[in-house]
């Protein structure tokens, strides 16, 4: 891919595309390819599915760009399309489980959702195995919860923007985020707590 940077804003690129400048569209693809692919890869956990969903996302963007309201943020609109694309891909692959987290919602334990203020031991996070496990664990939570976590954590999107993407009230998004983070944190700590406090080269790690 020839990397080119374009000083124009997203809105300006959209306007240029509408005026017939297709290079503007290629600039938008270059600008967001990495973000969209990372998001979709983390959503699906598979590179093949992520590639298909990324392709589908940008084709839909091209098809609908003339109808896009340029006063709204392009990134929010793009991620809405990406989210729908990944749900389609996952549905083709297998029935979506709405989900480990949603199942837990039925026996909702409020106390369990209160954030644990203790920091995660950094020695724990330094371990490749733990980080890999966290990525795998993320694939077990519901699609909606996963989307919220990834958009907030890896794309730095605000809860307001995420609420637009997932089509839910902001408070629902926030509580979903808190619950999922508490679940991820607890699961990681429970599983690897015996490693906490040990250095990356400790004997225990190599056993």
């Amino acid at each position, binding site marked *: *891919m020839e990397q080119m940077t374009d000083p124009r804003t997203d809105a300006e690129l959209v306007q240029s595309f509408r005026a*017939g400048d*297709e*290079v503007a*569209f*290629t600039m938008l*693809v*270059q600008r967001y*390819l*990495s973000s969209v*692919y*990372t998001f979709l*890869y*983390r959503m699906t956990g598979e*590179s093949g599915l*992520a*590639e298909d969903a*990324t*392709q589908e996302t*940008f*084709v839909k963007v*091209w*098809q609908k760009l003339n109808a896009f309201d340029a006063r709204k943020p392009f990134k929010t609109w793009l991620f809405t399309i990406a989210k729908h694309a990944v749900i389609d891909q996952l549905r083709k692959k297998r029935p979506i489980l709405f989900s480990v987290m949603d199942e837990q919602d039925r026996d909702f334990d409020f106390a369990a959702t209160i*954030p*644990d*203020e203790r*920091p*995660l031991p*950094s020695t724990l*996070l*330094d371990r490749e195995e*733990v*980080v890999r496990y*966290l*990525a795998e664990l993320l694939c077990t939570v519901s699609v909606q919860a996963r989307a919220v*976590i990834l958009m907030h*954590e*890896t794309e730095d999107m605000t809860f307001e923007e995420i609420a637009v993407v997932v089509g839910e009230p902001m408070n629902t998004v926030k509580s979903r985020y*808190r619950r999922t*983070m508490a679940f*991820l*944190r607890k699961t*990681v700590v429970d599983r690897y707590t015996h490693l906490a406090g040990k250095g990356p080269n400790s004997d225990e790690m190599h056993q």
Partner: protein
Amino acid sequence: MTQDSTLLFSHIAPVKPPDALYAQILSAVALARARRLRTRFFVALTGLVTTMGYAVFGGFAWRTEWQASSFMSMVRLSISDPDVLFGNGQEYVFAVLETIPMGAITLVCAALFLGASLLAIGDGWRRARHSAIARFQAVR
């Protein structure tokens, strides 16, 4: 919680998209565009052929409708004697509206619209072949 979560996810390495993905995306877009142009072309062509076919096979009825109508006489009158227009404006407009051969005019308008659409599609095709995305069409 925010610091905690940031700590959680800051350790997950970013994923680099495959090198070929960019070209694949633009190739898929080029294909989608070709498919869209092809669909529009066949719809417009089918419409034009249907319209022209109807005009040819229904030519007799169409000609009779046109001849029976006094629409052209009214138009000629407005050219040869414009005073009629100014003197009896409202009546003249109503008379013209009543005599319009709707079937024939609809047919002509449809044929003109479809013909213009075909020309626009042809132009779109020509521009698409030289666009920034076209060079990715053969990547797939």
